[in-house]
């Protein structure tokens, strides 16, 4: 039987129908040895277990349908399916690897947890990695997205981990900023980033330039469109390119035409 350090965090009591207007959120607690809980409201929260045994406390009558669970250890299929029936979402490892528990705790405490990584999973067959974010949402990143450096350093997908409190993914000796991944693959993240930044030009041309540089495409790299024309668009001398030009640019950069100005 585990000892609860904070009985108020018992999921049976804490996820009931009644809201507690006096409760303050978010609230992070070590509920028992190897079990962290972050309440973001009376009804929803995040749990992190460092092994299967702390999950024994979750009974069939617990109301956990708005909670998410991360277990850093491997679970057998039966236990996993049981927990998946109880929780809104369950993330487990291995093969996924996660930040050490102390760093994971800091990510959960952060108000930008959704913009940090807590874990990563490599799928060699599909040649992709799955980035697990601080809100336990997952995002798939193709291996091809990680360009080797000009010095020839390539990412090593056999040696991948999250470091720097969720700000960086290490792939062998190669490091990638999580921000760079989310900026390209998550439109909501881009919208938040635009609010955060001071020196970002909101013009279409500036957005195209940022995206082109992010993708590593030179101005000469757009079939059917001259380098000079791309330069004119980026300088704002063409307020809005023709639809066909826009489609060609978007196709080359691998995005929807409507998304270019979000970069």
């Amino acid at each position, binding site marked *: 039987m585990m000892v609860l350090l904070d009985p108020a965090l018992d999921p049976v009591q804490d996820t009931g129908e009644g809201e507690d207007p006096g409760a303050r959120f978010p609230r992070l607690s070590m509920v028992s040895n190897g079990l962290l809980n972050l309440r973001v409201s009376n009804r929803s929260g995040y749990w992190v277990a460092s092994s299967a045994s702390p999950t024994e406390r979750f009974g069939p009558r617990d109301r956990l349908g708005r909670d998410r669970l991360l277990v850093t250890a491997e679970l057998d299929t039966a236990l996993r399916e049981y927990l998946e029936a109880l929780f809104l979402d369950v993330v487990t490892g291995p093969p996924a690897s996660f930040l050490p528990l102390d760093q994971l705790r800091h990510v959960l405490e952060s108000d930008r947890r959704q913009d940090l990584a807590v874990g990563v999973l490599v799928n060699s067959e599909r040649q992709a990695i799955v980035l697990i974010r601080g809100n336990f949402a997952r995002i798939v990143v193709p291996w091809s997205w990680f360009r080797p450096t000009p010095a020839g350093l390539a990412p090593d997908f056999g040696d991948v981990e999250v470091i*720097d409190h969720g*700000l960086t993914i290490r792939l062998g000796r190669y*490091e990638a900023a999580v921000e760079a991944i989310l900026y390209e693959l998550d439109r909501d993240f881009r919208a938040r980033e635009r*609010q955060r*930044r001071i*020196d970002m030009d909101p013009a279409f041309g500036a957005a195209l330039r940022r995206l082109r*540089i992010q993708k590593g495409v030179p*101005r000469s790299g757009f079939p059917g469109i001259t380098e000079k024309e791309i330069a004119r668009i980026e300088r704002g001398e063409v307020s809005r390119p023709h639809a066909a030009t826009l489609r060609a640019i978007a196709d080359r950069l691998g995005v929807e035409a409507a998304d270019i100005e979000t970069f």
Partner: protein
Amino acid sequence: MPEQLPLPKRLSAEGWKVKIRDLEHGEPPHATVIRGTTDWRWNLRSRQFMDRQPNARDVPTELVRLMRAHHADLVRWWDTTFPDNPVGPGEEE
């Protein structure tokens, strides 16, 4: 391999890092100051912090002074890693 500015022991012990990683959000060129779950982007062109949040005042003056003193190294590291997007006015026009 990421470039990391060597810092005095006190700053390192407090968890501060200054990095240019192999894959960064590319525009504009910058070094990233990291401490815990917080990161600040320092523009290598303007030598100023780029973002409204987090507050640049939370970064120790000593660390900012070090970045200014090693600006040439940071620029060289960036330009080596991202030659298509150099710090100087070298973008193809």
